[in-house]
């Protein structure tokens, strides 16, 4: 177990974690505030990838503008589903879940109709290698990791320091009290959904850069989001961060030494164990 192996594993783990956390955060946010299990969340991530591809091909702007623009566009495109699919079903756990499943099918299959089924690659803006000491890191992964971390920091600052962030936290704690304090819960839901899908879109765009882009790729980030959110606790933001780090690191480590299947198995086993022993996750709160 030499340092030579550990450093790349750690690096890979970190970049994976950062992307996973971006996606999982949005998922847990939507559950925490609106109590909706958004089965279509992975498809919003996928959308981010396709917006990025589309914009890169059609806009002469630099990557640094196109990437956030893609994320924002995903957020904007989530407003219609929020209003017409989810809003009527807030408070109904199972129907909203089933409707989300339907939405995920519509989005994925819609993407197939528009873009075709095949996988594609996003042309890499960063192709170099970054050298630190005797380790080399691919530049694109470095950039991805940096962007993801920056986005997470921005999100944390937003929730912690802005008034909207305060409103979000209040509504998450107790909707009735929030309404009594004059907080517009409907607007809060819209903002939450926008933020959640925007981050998912960003995560998906970054993910698509490293791996490949296809209409069905949404199920991967969704599965990861599930795992992270169960580990960290449904509805807990720090939990998502913790879960993301644990998952990214363990996946990187296990995949390198034992192969991808073992990594998958272990994460599934961990979920089952957690759901049985502590369904509210490491940092969540048990509800009645």
């Amino acid at each position: 177990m030499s340092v030579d192996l550990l450093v790349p594993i750690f690096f890979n783990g970190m970049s994976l974690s950062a992307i996973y956390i971006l996606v999982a955060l949005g998922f847990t946010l939507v559950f925490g505030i609106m109590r909706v299990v958004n089965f279509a969340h992975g498809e919003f991530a996928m959308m981010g990838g396709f917006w990025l591809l589309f914009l890169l091909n059609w806009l002469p702007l630099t990557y640094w503008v196109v990437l956030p623009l893609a994320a924002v566009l995903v957020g904007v495109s989530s407003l219609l589903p929020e209003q017409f699919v989810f809003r009527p079903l807030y408070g109904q756990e199972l129907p909203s879940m089933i409707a989300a499943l339907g939405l995920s099918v519509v989005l994925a299959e819609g993407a197939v109709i528009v873009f075709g089924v095949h996988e594609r690659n996003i042309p890499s803006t960063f192709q170099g290698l970054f050298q630190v000491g005797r380790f080399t890191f691919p530049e694109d992964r470095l950039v991805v990791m940096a962007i993801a971390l920056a986005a997470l920091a921005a999100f944390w600052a937003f929730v912690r320091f802005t008034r909207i962030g305060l409103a979000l936290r209040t509504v998450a704690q107790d909707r009735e009290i929030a309404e009594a304090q004059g907080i517009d819960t409907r607007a809060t839901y819209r903002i939450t959904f926008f933020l959640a899908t925007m981050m998912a879109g960003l995560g998906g765009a970054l993910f698509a850069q490293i791996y490949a882009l296809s209409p069905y790729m949404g199920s991967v980030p969704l599965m990861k989001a599930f795992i992270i959110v169960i580990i960290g606790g449904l509805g807990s933001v720090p939990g998502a961060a913790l879960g993301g780090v644990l998952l990214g690191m363990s996946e990187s480590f296990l995949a390198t030494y034992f192969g991808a299947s073992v990594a998958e198995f272990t994460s599934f086993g961990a979920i089952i164990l957690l759901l049985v022993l502590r369904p509210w996750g490491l940092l969540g709160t048990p509800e009645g």
Partner: protein
Amino acid sequence: MGLRALVESAGAGLRRRRWLWLGVLGALLVAWPIFIHEVFFAYIATLMLLYTIGAASLHLVLRTGHLSLCHAAFMGLGGYTSALLTTRLGWPFALAFLASGLVPAAVALVVGPILLRLRGVYFVLITFTLGEIVRLVLNEWKSLTGGADGIFRIPPPSPLLVDKRAYYYFALAMAAICVGVIARILSSQTGRYIDSIRESERLAQSSGVPILRFKVMIFAIACGFVGFQGSLLAHFITFVAPGSYTFSESLNLLVMNVIGGMGGLAGPLIGAAFLTALPEFLRGWVELQRVLYGVVLVLVMLFVPGGLIEIGRRLLSTGRS
């Protein structure tokens, strides 16, 4: 008030003459192959019938108030059990078929007490995970399952059943028995207390109903029946592969229940027939059909949560006003 009484009496009349309707349906199901000879129709009809078994068995689980996303995994357990026993060990179909129900039921008995303690979202997530685990096992345990390629050349239950039309009648008989058993369970005292659990666990428990034991029992029965479907399907299409038992298939079974209507057993039966037939009529528009699938799901949840049954009821009542 007058309209309501009218609809209720119509419903009551329907119920009293239920056996008449069932008889008519039964006669139709037996007689139509005499007039329509294309094998294609027998093929589709067979699939419809086999899926009624799985959809009805999922209905049992839904009746206890739990939404399972791993039902297809248990179908896979049944299918693979039957395939392995007949192709590798040369067992006769009858025994393999029995085993194809017992194996998923046994697994359900073991994992049930763990899974069914969870409710709502958590149960959905853990069943989703379980489904993924089974998919992984089917793919990775190559020596046993043949990996992603699956198992081929599964023999028909009997030389008489190589003909697709003959298999149709076999499937009809099996489906009738399975659905009949499920219907009987639901109409018996067991069904009453399943409903009581779903409507209020606290109240049911305070009347002495052993909640977890009931749920596990029903879950095991449901998994057994979908295992039977797995076996019947396996011997019909003559192969099994992990790809047939993914989350997508579990979703399919759920959608049959949702679209047909979750209020009663008729819902999944109608849903199974409808959803099995639909792809055949939308042939050539495969992608559009998939999108429509999702759209219908959303629309049903938003506007007609009672599914096709509810649509039928509404049509009946407006027809009479």
